[in-house]
């Protein structure tokens, strides 16, 4: 997957490109609208991560250009403005998703992968890791060809782990992924623990390996090297 990141803050750019590079995603960067226009006209990208507030204009103009020139790239808007209007006008103009700053890097990756699956695979893809197979089109999970009975949250959680393999997923990031913006002031880390525990139990019961590790008090990690 090849990504164009349009963001003027160098620190944020390095955070995102570092994280994505670890997941094997090539990330090119543009720091202005002009540079970004230049790049999307010259190269092709699977997805454009687009900040709206750029030094030389509103990022929505780039989105218009993408639609106008029928460029085959998905667009994920990241914006600090966070207002409903921005979100709606972005989605109206044909952006594939919207993520308000500040976001969790794991969440960004999950959204990217989801967009990728939706647009490039038309949802008919499978995420396979060793004995675990996730069939996205049917919301099914197979472990050693045995169907797991997972709740919606457990399914989301497993997919979140699989898209962020070998990364530490903070409790906040998991909570935000599962419950969204609104419950972030309810201290629901206990529920994260509950869901992770149930997921591990179900995978183990089906004879799968226990890949999920606790990382001190920070969160959890899907450890591909687990024995």
């Amino acid at each position, binding site marked *: 997957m090849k990504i164009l990141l349009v963001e003027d803050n160098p*620190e944020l750019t390095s955070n995102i490109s570092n994280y994505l590079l670890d997941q094997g995603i090539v990330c090119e960067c543009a720091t202005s609208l002009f540079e970004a226009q230049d790049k999307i006209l010259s190269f092709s990208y699977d997805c454009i991560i687009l900040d709206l507030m750029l030094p030389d204009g509103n990022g929505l103009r780039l989105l218009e250009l993408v639609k106008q020139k029928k460029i085959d790239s998905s667009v994920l808007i990241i914006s*600090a403005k966070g207002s*409903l209007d921005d979100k709606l006008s972005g989605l109206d103009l044909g952006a594939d998703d919207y993520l308000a700053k500040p976001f969790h890097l*794991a969440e960004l990756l999950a959204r990217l992968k989801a967009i990728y699956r939706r647009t490039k695979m038309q949802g008919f893809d499978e995420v396979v890791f060793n004995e675990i197979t996730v069939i996205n089109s049917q919301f099914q999970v197979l472990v050693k060809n045995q169907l797991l009975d997972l709740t919606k949250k457990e399914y989301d959680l497993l997919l979140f782990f699989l898209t962020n393999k070998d990364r530490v997923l*903070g409790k906040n990031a998991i909570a935000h992924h599962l419950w969204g913006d*609104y419950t972030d*002031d309810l201290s629901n880390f206990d*529920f994260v623990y509950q869901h992770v525990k149930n997921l591990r139990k179900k995978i183990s019961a089906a004879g799968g390996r226990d890949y999920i590790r606790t990382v001190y*008090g920070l969160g959890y990690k899907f450890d591909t090297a687990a024995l």
Partner: protein
Amino acid sequence: MKLINIISLWFLGITLAALLIGTIVIYEKLGSEIDFELGMELDRQIESYADRIAQGAPVNKLIYDKLQIQEISMDRPVEELWLRDTLAYHDPMNRNETQLKASRSFKINGKHYRISYYNLVVEADDITETIVITMLTVFLAQLLFIGCFLWAISRKIFRPFHQSLDQLQSFTLQKNTPLTFKKSGVTEFDLLNSFLAKMSTKLLTDYRKIKEFSENLSHEIQTPSAVVRGKLELLMNESINGQQAALIQAAFDSNEHIRRIVKSLSILAKLENDEFESPDPVDFSEVMASVLSRMEEVIQMHDIQLKKHIQPGVILPIHPFVAEILINNLLSNSIKHNLEGGKLDILMDRSMLQIRNTGRTPSFDPKEMLGRFKKDGDNKDSVGLGLAIVNQICKNYGFGLLYTFEKPFHSIQIQFR
């Protein structure tokens, strides 16, 4: 009371006092002047009679109802002119009248006569009557003039003032246009207007600055906060020990806290600026149902007994986003500050929404709960802006908000109309 009425009343009062003093002075002056002139006249009469006696006119022939001539002893000294009021018979009117009596004595041809002459005086009553009528006429004329002044002239003079008032009344920060006034030609009003115009311009620039600041604040803090969060997430993936993990988690939590404060403040600022226009009425019951369904899991996990009675189809003219924030904040609060295994009652109909939850006794007056950053100290995760936002929303939409605590129930009631 209108300024013009106050001025008129004072003016009338002062005029009245001046007229009263004038009346007294005129009365005194007129009386004494008349008496003096009359005295002089009587004196001349007496002198002429004395002359006639000296020329040899017979004394008893001279006497009539206005004239008395008395012979007194030669030993007595000559009497000077002496005036006094007396009641004497007046022949033409055939009754006693107040008259002025002047007497003086003369020594003529070895005899001593006291000659007294009477004449009618202008009575005090008559003088008073005349003066009072005159003064009343003056006073009434003034009343009339002041009335005309009130009705017509004041309207003309005060027109620029009323225009300024109207403009001031229609001045709002949202319109973003400073006040401009026409020259009125009255120095005081022009001075006031120029001051008002300057003040409105200053007000608008200040308001714009504050608005820009609060708008920029959210963006300016959110970006570095996002950077911090990203760095910490990257750091989590380095090889770290437990102690470092704890440090990272603490830094992460504090950063999250900042993020929540900024988010809440920016919502508050937007509400205060009235930036949410309600496009269409919203089915409040549906919003309630969707927020509740999102929180049901949390409610269950806290072992809270939920009792709800929600009338379907409660339509309110409120922005959907604001409706969601309102319900979300209320429910979050009632869960966050609930007791483990506590109760949560939600009651909603067309006129009001009541949310009651069990909780600890607050350490301060429930009324203060609606203020910013008011929270019970031991809840470090709480930002303390939730109810301030609820309060602001209720203000914006004209809802009544009542917060009460009756052990162990915290109750929030919102009156829609």
